[in-house]
């Protein structure tokens, strides 16, 4: 078995283990051990990947494995990774690992909870290793459906409504995406020959323009909905705020990245011509996402809603950067995905921990937490500073790269939308600092909260893991960019081939 398939097999084995063990504690341990192995495996993957690249391997994808699945349709189980997927896989293992520890206290149907959570993770891992559109789509849907149960059973607030809304909107998006994928498939061999779902093979040909005009928007919107593309972002605030902590972490941290990843790996990579022609529509929409999400976060009082809207804004920035279609911006998009994944997971984890103590998420009902729970509060400040782009933390690197990339376009339109998008930085600072001021630094308003316990060991594991990586990316972004460069190059080549022509 190759190393990539292991990324799907280990979660499946973990699920089996969780089902087999008996008492509550063992369930948690089984989940933690399984995902711990997964984390080590992704470290091994990074090591193998980097050493293969240093050894002079210049293939576009490494560790490729190809098995025929359905011969009639030329559907294969094809896996392979480039630097981008490696980075995303590492992010996923980190967030899942942290998520397991953040949900240590789930005591209602614990077994089912961890099984669903890891099933979701299986879908995400499978998605990032897939090179075949069919398997990619399969894993995409696999990642979406456990959300219904996770939010519906273990959620809070209007959970049934949120779960249904989220599931239907995301499945609706995947329905459109399915059409896009079928369209790509039937145009994958314009010169005759075997039709294929394999992304690399499709990329060797040019899909006819007419088909591109039809299927690019479908594919982009299909993935975009998951990346909270305005006006299809409405599932995100409701879903994230109703979901239990680990699910919010995983969903905002990783699942929304499926949208961004798919948008450039499938929509832009395979149909760059239509992407060039139609990008202006989506650039406008994503700029709205970026600014609107930030404004939305300002007026919210619920911590989770604030962070959910902030996710809309940050994920909008990912799509925005992807649509700029140059190397710097694309680099920025991936760094932003990783950075936002880590910091939003941290945010949601902290919010979950605070909520677990105070049983409220309304910022005006709490105050002065800095004195009461210093560990959690400091971590919250760090997450906030990363989110508003403080140099030295990951958010700064990401946003800087994105905006520099976007500003490289010399024409008026791109400059204007970039400036509009940049304003979001200021707005972000407003809502982040507002929360910090009221929630952490303000006077203590409720004496019930005076004797809260600070973080326990498992919460510290979760928080420290995430903060470490936020800081590493912030201080040494070259570690990440050197990993990404080989992955981004072929996509840029394909885009430029059109621009020159």
């Amino acid at each position, binding site marked *: 078995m190759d190393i990539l398939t292991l990324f799907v097999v280990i979660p499946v084995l973990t699920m089996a283990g969780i089902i087999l063990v008996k008492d509550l504690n063992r369930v948690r341990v089984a989940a933690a051990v399984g995902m711990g192995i997964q984390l080590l495996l992704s470290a091994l993957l990074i090591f193998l990947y980097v050493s293969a690249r240093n050894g002079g391997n210049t293939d576009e994808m490494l560790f490729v494995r190809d098995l025929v699945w359905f011969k009639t349709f030329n559907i294969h189980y094809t896996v392979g990774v480039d630097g981008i997927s490696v980075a995303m896989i590492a992010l996923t293992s980190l967030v899942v690992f942290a998520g397991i520890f953040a949900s240590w206290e789930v005591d209602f149907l614990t077994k089912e909870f961890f099984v669903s959570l890891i099933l979701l993770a299986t879908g995400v891992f499978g998605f990032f290793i897939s090179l075949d559109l069919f398997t990619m789509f399969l894993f995409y849907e696999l990642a979406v459906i456990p959300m219904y149960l996770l939010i519906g059973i273990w959620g809070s607030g209007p959970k049934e409504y949120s779960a249904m809304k989220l599931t239907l909107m995301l499945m*609706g998006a995947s*329905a459109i995406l399915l059409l896009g994928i079928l369209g790509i498939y039937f145009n994958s061999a314009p010169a005759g020959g075997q039709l294929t779902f394999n992304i690399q093979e499709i990329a060797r040909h040019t899909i006819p323009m007419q088909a591109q005009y039809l299927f690019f928007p479908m594919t982009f919107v299909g993935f975009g909905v998951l990346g909270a593309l305005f006006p299809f972002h409405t599932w995100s605030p409701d879903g994230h705020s109703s979901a239990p902590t680990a699910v919010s972490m995983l969903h905002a941290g990783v699942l929304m990245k499926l949208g961004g990843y798919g948008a450039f790996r499938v929509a832009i990579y395979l149909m760059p011509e239509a992407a060039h022609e139609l990008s202006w529509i989506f650039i406008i929409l994503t700029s709205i996402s970026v600014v609107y999400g930030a404004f939305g976060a300002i007026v919210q009082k619920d911590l989770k809603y604030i962070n959910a809207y902030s996710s809309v804004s940050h994920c909008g920035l990912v799509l925005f950067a992807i649509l700029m279609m140059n190397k710097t911006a694309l680099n920025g998009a991936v760094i932003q995905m990783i950075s936002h994944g880590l910091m939003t997971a941290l945010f949601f984890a902290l919010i979950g921990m605070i909520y677990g103590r105070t049983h409220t998420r309304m910022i005006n009902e709490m105050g002065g937490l800095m004195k009461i729970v210093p560990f959690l509060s400091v971590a919250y400040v760090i997450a906030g500073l990363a989110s508003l782009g403080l140099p030295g933390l990951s958010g700064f690197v990401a946003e800087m790269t994105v905006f520099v990339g976007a500003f490289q376009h010399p024409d008026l339109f791109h400059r204007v939308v970039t400036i509009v998008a940049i304003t979001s930085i200021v707005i972000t600072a407003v809502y982040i600092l507002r929360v910090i001021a009221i929630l952490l630094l303000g006077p203590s308003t409720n004496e019930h909260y005076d004797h809260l316990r600070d973080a326990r060991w498992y919460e510290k594991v979760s928080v420290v893991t995430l903060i470490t990586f936020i800081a590493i990316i912030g201080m040494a972004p070259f570690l990440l960019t050197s990993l990404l460069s080989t992955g981004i190059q072929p996509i840029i080549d394909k885009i430029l081939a059109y621009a020159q022509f």
Partner: protein
Amino acid sequence: MTLRDFLLMRQELLLIVATLLILSAEIFRDPEKKRSPDLFALILFAIVTFAGFLPSETGTLFGGMYEVTDTRLIMKNILNAGVLIVLLQSVSWLGRKEYEGRTSEYHIILLSTLAGMDFMISAGHFLMFYIGLELATIPLAALVAYDRFSNKSAEGGIKLILISALSSGILLYGLSMIYGTTGSLYFDEVARLFRNGNLEILAFIFFFSGMAFKISIVPFHLWTADVYEGAPVNITSYLSVISKGAAAFIFIIVLFRVFPVIIESWQKLIYVTAVLTMTIGNLFAIRQQNLKRFLAFSSISQAGYLLLGFIGGTQTGMASVIYYILVYVFSNLGAFGVVAAISNSSGRENIGDYNGLYRTNPGLSLVMLLALFSLAGIPPFAGFFGKFFLFTAAAQKGYYILVLIAVLNTIISLYYYLLVVKAMFIVKNETPIGSFNSDLPTKIALGICVAGIVIIGFAGIIFEMIRNSSFGV
């Protein structure tokens, strides 16, 4: 007839022998021993099922009236597997006091309708097809009315027999016109002589309507919900899976083989009916409270998806239809099996009764979850692959709009399937249906369904096998 002829017909002959054996066993049965006939029938039918999977020759009999091809063998095997599951599921239901001494008649009627379906699928001549169809339908009315203490059951039986008579009449009228225009009823000759004229189109429309009744395609679906609701649950599952599957099998064979000349006409017809069937089935399913009616409308919409495989007239299309029915057999019987188990133990059949079911009956709830997800087309379950291939088959011929309508419909269907999931897993309930243990046959049946739902999708070889035996226009 030579031995070879007997061997060619072994599916039907074995079935008839099994039926007769059950009948004679009933005569010599010691009335003191109660449960023996069920087990006897089950064993006999299991033998028939396994015999079906043995390699067989292909060929024709009775001067071309009866045909055995790889396609038809696969179809019969799928039906056999389905019927085996239905029989297993009915054991506990038949054990009720009020059915004492009547269980043999259940098996005899059920197996003779299956024999009718097998004859129908093997037909190479329209008369043979018609006889098989009648044998497959008329006894069914007796089964629907099997529960003789229930008014609804009797009502369902009457409705089914009237509708069957009507649709048979329409079908026969179409056949007579086919005979009038071509002078033959052999599939091959009709295919050769059929022209694209007005009378021929009219004949085809009558034929199509007759078949549409059987598969319950909108606008010929109105009987479905009432009959499904009235019939005992196990009969409902038989009707919605086996009976519908058999009709769809022969319909696609006849359509592709006999009527390729007028393909453009029937493509339009199927386009419209597919859209109507999917949409109306789904929209009506949303409002249903009774699970049998709910599954009835869901099965109407499933027939709509099925038509997407018909429309292209391609080999892939036919393969995806057969494959989808195979998947549908396991998924729908899984769902019905759970409904039957709960209905038999508690007599409750409404979605509201399922609130909080997971707490008391986690196993059944999980089977239901898998079955509904498979019906909704959620990976990694078999239904996802089935739907994907149907959609691919339609998109291959450029029917992108139709595929769009179909995928939007799957979202609607996901909504109402999730309503059941919500009831079972999410809604809190102080008084859920009590915990109970299903008997062994039910467990085996549900186990087979779950295995089918999980495995069929991953085993790519099954699709390849079906595809190699299929044919296009």
